[in-house]
């Protein structure tokens, strides 16, 4: 059964129709990369999956729960299983790195403070930032901040991870360290949906690449196929521009 099932998803901002009819099923342990020109709706699609954007019509099911029509209380519950990593990191500046990571599990009373801190330290080890546990986010580089943000999302033990252009705000020399953490995560079997401009990452890590343009999924397939032998003219044009 699919982890994430998107059916006939439409999203408009006022007059502007950003997502026109999206159908997508993501399986457990699958890594999906969403590519496409800016303004094509790929971030909006991602944000509809955890209801940061409210779909205009259609359904988004995660783990069998329809998040589009759910009550606020249920949405909060569903979101606990959907991790999200943002382009701008969005770490909480008034908390230390460790507090950032243990904050949600403790505040939602899912773990005791001690349990959460132990888990946070474990996660920091995973993203190779153990020594930064007690510093504040502003003292970290962009790449380090993004790795903490990944650890923060993982602290909720999510079933699915959403990445919204996680390396777009980074200096070039820091892109690699973040992508490496994501690669490790993919290898461990995390279900991941990644909006990205990193074609190398998509080629190497994705099980399936989705090309979105103008609110539609134009083409999708395994990376060798989509990058090696794109069929649609718009895909070809886009790849010619970015590769």
């Amino acid at each position, binding site marked *: 059964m699919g982890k994430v099932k998107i059916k006939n998803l439409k999203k408009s901002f006022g007059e502007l129709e950003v997502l026109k009819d999206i159908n997508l099923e993501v399986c457990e342990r699958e890594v999906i990369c969403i590519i496409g020109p800016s303004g094509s709706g790929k971030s909006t699609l991602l944000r509809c999956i*955890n209801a*940061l954007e409210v779909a205009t019509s259609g359904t988004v099911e995660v783990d069998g729960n329809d998040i589009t029509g759910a009550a*606020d*209380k249920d949405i*909060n*519950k*569903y*979101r*606990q299983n*959907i*991790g*999200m990593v*943002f382009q*701008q990191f*969005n*770490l*909480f*500046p*008034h908390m*230390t790195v460790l507090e950032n990571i243990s*904050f*949600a599990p403790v*505040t*939602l009373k899912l773990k005791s403070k001690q349990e959460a801190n132990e888990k946070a330290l474990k996660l920091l080890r995973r993203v190779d930032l153990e020594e930064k546990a007690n*510093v*504040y986010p*502003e*003292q970290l580089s962009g790449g380090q901040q993004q790795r903490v*943000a990944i650890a*923060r*999302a993982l602290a*909720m033990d999510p079933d699915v991870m959403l990445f919204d252009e996680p390396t777009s705000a980074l200096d070039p020399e820091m892109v690699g360290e973040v992508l490496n953490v994501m690669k490790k995560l993919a290898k461990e079997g995390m279900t991941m949906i990644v909006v990205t401009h990193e074609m190398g990452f998509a080629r190497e890590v994705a099980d399936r690449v989705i090309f979105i343009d103008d609110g539609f999924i134009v083409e999708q397939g395994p990376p060798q196929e989509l990058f090696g032998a794109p069929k649609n003219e718009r895909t070809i044009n886009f790849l010619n521009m970015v590769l």
Partner: protein
Amino acid sequence: MSIPELVVQNWSRLLAGLAMTVELTIISLIIAGMLGLLFGLLSVSKKKSLRAIALVYVDIVRGTPLLVQAFFIYFGIPAALGIRLDANTAGIITLSLNAGGYLAEIFRGGIESINKGQMEAARSLGLPYSLAMTKVILPQAVRTMTPALINQCIITLKDTSILSIIGIQELTQTGRLIIANNYQAFEMWTIVAVMYFIIIMILTKISKRIERKMSYGKSEN
């Protein structure tokens, strides 16, 4: 009589007046803080009707003079409802409502100054709006609001002097009563002014210290 002599002679009365000023300020600011937070939160609500309530309140407070507000609450409302309101209560209500309106705007500005991504990050972790607001947004907002909050405290402290007009014996009214006996207007108003000045300077110093302490992580390293 010289100023030092006047100070010595009237010391206990002046001090009582100052105590009343400080008491009015503190009580009013506590109530105003709650009103400000409440209406500030309403004004950033997604619901239009809630925003409208906050807007009306803030507009009324800002659109009318404090003196008129004091008269309305001390004379107007009791006349309409046939009740009696003592001056201190009326004064506290007036100052609370007044400062509450300005504080609501300060809270709104503080909350809106926090990057939208902070709320989204908190919500994406599964936190309900209320927890995201109280644990993520407000702690950051209060930090950015600190200078404006302190400014409002000082304004409210000075605004207590307007309440002398409805007969509250705070510092200004005390000064007037003393002058009514000894006619030494220059000396007495100098003393009163210096007393206001000193207490506000003390407040300013304390607030500067708080402000420094509140910047993230910096002071702790």
